[in-house]
């Protein structure tokens, strides 16, 4: 942080001016830190536009890029919903697969009307999420294990419904229309997902429920003690996550025109990566919608550029994985280098509580964003 202050070399005569300048660079540094992913996206965008001018910055590429990320973003949103209350949901990717297959089966083979099928699929996703929620909050099974079990069971059901085949027969055109209709040049699936992201964003940041959600993720016991219905809230987030994942499955069917029973599982890790990477930016230290969105875009832009430059398809997960680790380490490093300080006691709960991402870096991060006065208050007595 300090290295980026040219004002340190300012002339003594211009002391006042240099103070203003230093305040300005401080602001820029803070903006960069808070919007690190956004800056990186811009940089990558410019670099790739110069490196592959004929292919990367073209409308078809960018439209395809956006459409290709819609399902992944929605899945990341469902991962986000559960991580904000301090739990993990591994089953969402399998719910996505089940929903795609169920939708294809009911509308194609059984010929049920499309609206009914959509309602059934989303209800099924919500139901599965509710089951996970009950197993976690009532039967007190650790969410990682509970949703692993639920996810496995769901993946079996998916194979059962599809008979292990990719379902592509008689699927109504309505699904393609729902997902692919261009609006302002971009497929409708993107708009649907963005609308959902906005709703979740408003819920998390502007409503009382959002405070309760972050409180529960930050400290379940504290939330309980102030009268928040922690179990109900967690259960609701699992249900919502299931519903979102199911909708992602329906959109996926519309985009692909066929339902592959093994589709969802490939999206699981990237969705988690986006949520965690997103927690380093916009509202550092908290899982947040805008950060997750930026992370999804960053990963997509990064890989798209690389593939246009000739990188093979298998580079994508490698890129995602490396980007996640580099992102987390860089956000921690940038704060540690600015002040040598160990994490305060009571914050060492890292992985054990997903509601507190990056336990060690978290407080430092806030501190570096705050002014020096509250930095002084960081002194623990």
């Amino acid at each position, binding site marked *: 942080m300090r290295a980026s202050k040219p004002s340190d070399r300012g002339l003594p005569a211009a002391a006042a001016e240099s103070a203003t300048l230093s305040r300005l660079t401080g602001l820029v540094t803070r903006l960069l830190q808070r919007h690190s992913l956004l800056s990186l996206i811009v940089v990558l965008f410019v670099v790739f536009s110069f490196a592959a001018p004929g292919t990367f910055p073209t409308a078809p590429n960018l439209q395809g890029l956006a459409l290709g990320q819609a399902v992944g973003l929605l899945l990341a949103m469902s991962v986000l919903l559960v991580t904000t209350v301090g739990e993990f949901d591994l089953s969402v990717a399998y719910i996505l697969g089940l929903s795609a297959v169920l939708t294809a089966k009911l509308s194609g083979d059984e010929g049920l009307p499309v609206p009914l099928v959509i309602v059934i699929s989303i209800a099924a996703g919500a139901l599965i999420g509710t089951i996970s929620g009950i197993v976690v909050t009532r039967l007190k099974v650790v969410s990682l294990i509970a949703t692993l079990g639920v996810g496995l069971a769901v993946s079996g059901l998916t194979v059962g419904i599809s008979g292990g085949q990719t379902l592509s027969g008689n699927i109504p055109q309505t699904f393609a229309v729902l997902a692919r209709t261009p609006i302002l040049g971009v497929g409708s699936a993107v708009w649907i997902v963005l609308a959902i992201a906005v709703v979740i964003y408003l819920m998390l940041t502007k409503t009382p429920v959002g405070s309760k959600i972050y409180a529960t993720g930050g400290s379940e016991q504290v939330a309980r003690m102030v009268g928040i219905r922690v179990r109900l809230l967690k259960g609701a987030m699992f249900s919502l996550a299931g519903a979102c994942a199911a909708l992602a499955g329906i959109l996926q069917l519309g985009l692909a025109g066929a339902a592959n029973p093994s589709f969802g599982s490939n999206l699981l890790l990237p969705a988690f990566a986006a949520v965690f990477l997103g927690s380093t930016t916009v509202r550092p230290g908290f899982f947040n919608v805008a950060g997750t969105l930026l992370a999804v875009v960053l990963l997509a832009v990064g890989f798209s550029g690389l593939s246009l430059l000739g990188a093979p398809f298998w580079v994508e997960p490698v890129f995602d994985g490396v980007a996640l680790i580099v992102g987390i380490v860089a956000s921690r490093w940038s704060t540690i280098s600015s002040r040598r300080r160990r994490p305060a006691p009571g914050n060492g709960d890292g992985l054990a509580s997903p509601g507190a991402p990056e336990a060690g870096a978290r407080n430092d991060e806030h501190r*570096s964003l705050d002014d020096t006065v*509250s930095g002084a208050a960081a*002194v623990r007595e």
Partner: protein
Amino acid sequence: MPAEQRLAVSDLTVSYGQHEVVHGISFDVDRGRMVALLGANGSGKSTTVKALTGVNAMGPRTRVRFNGTPVKPASLTTTGSRRLGIRVVHQEAPLISNMTVAEMAALHMGFPHAGGVVRHGELKRQTAQMLADFDVDVDPDAYCGELTTGERALVSLAISMAGIDPDRALLILDEATAALSTTDAKRLLDRVRNAVERGLSVVMVTHRLPEVREYCDRTLVLRDGDLVSALERESFSESAVIHAMVGDEEQRVAADARQASATVPERSAALIATGLQGQGVTSASFHVRPGEILGVTGRAGEGASELLRIIGGLEPATRGSVSVRGRELRLRTPRDAVSAGIFYLSPDRLSEGGVPTMTVHDNIVLPMVERYGLARRKAAADVAAMMDKLSIRPKDARTPFGSLSGGNQQKVLLARWLLLQPTVLVLDDPTAGVDPNTREIMFAILHELAAAGVSVLLRSTEPEHLARFCDRVIVMQGGRDAVQLQGAELTTEEISRATYA
């Protein structure tokens, strides 16, 4: 022959980022001496201590000598300071619940082994010896999670001093007694004092002035990162220390004697508990009148803390009844208590108090987010007024709760409940680890609340506080409300006698 001067620190500065919080203090600690380091919350005590143990970096001008030899500040890392002979006991004994005492000791002093295989018999013998050195009667095979708070403190003391000659070492007690009852604290400090007779030097951070009076040879007082006073044993007095701590600012002293509300008949009590039974409580019956401060005390494990947890809804009552303002309650969750106007303040500020990552503002309004809804400006104004009233520092409501000092965290949690206008306030040892001036502010506010008709249930481990601030005190023994003291019986001596009888 060990040097007469164990530690000499000159011009110690410590900074967080660009902000200097300890401004060039100098002090030394002689061999076989206990030195108290006092100061208000946020004065730099812990920061100073953490510089000695390598947690905080020292400034470039700082010079340190240990046992007469100069020490490079850069070499004072956590392991470096430990190797040198600086040992520390913290308030929360850092013991791992599912490990035995012997295994825990081995983590500090190394596992004795033969060809890579742990020799358990030898480890047990070493641990038993280590515990015996400090006269600690604990089985090396006991799991740390099974120890009482007092035992945990003694075990951490023994472990921290493992493998070092007291006559070469400096022991730092960083509020080591804050969570202990007076008896447990005395047991701990007596053992420390024994080691001091054998040449150990001690730096002790505490808020309990009686301990300082009894055990310490010298008292250093910090204020805003400066060393403002050094008192020898002869010149020590509570008023001198408090004056040094707060400077010329107005000292708040809560009104002492209270005989409020004694005329209100018992039948119109704000809270009545009858035959209450639950985790750690076998049978408790009592009432609190409106505007009354009822003290609850007892040795650890005798049911005082447990009783408050039941009233706060944290533990379910298995039998008996509780009614508030004549209305019978179903107390099964904290939510039940909160909706009846009973607000509980836990002594565990971080895990049962505030959400560390959230801001002070968000923590204060958390129970009433719905009431405020989207009225952010109203919420901000209420929070600012409350922070002002309780003089919470820093004044910025956007500061993360976890970065506040202990006393300020406590005030934030109190602010939260005050905004909700309690009927019954249940406070479990609210002044543990809180400096004397803040303590007086808190008690003055409690009296103000009581005068406005709020009922207060207050647990404290310090009889003198109970005698000063309460209208009545009940002493728990074996899970029962065994003794009730009021009026002329309400003295420090009577409370101590009833507690430790």
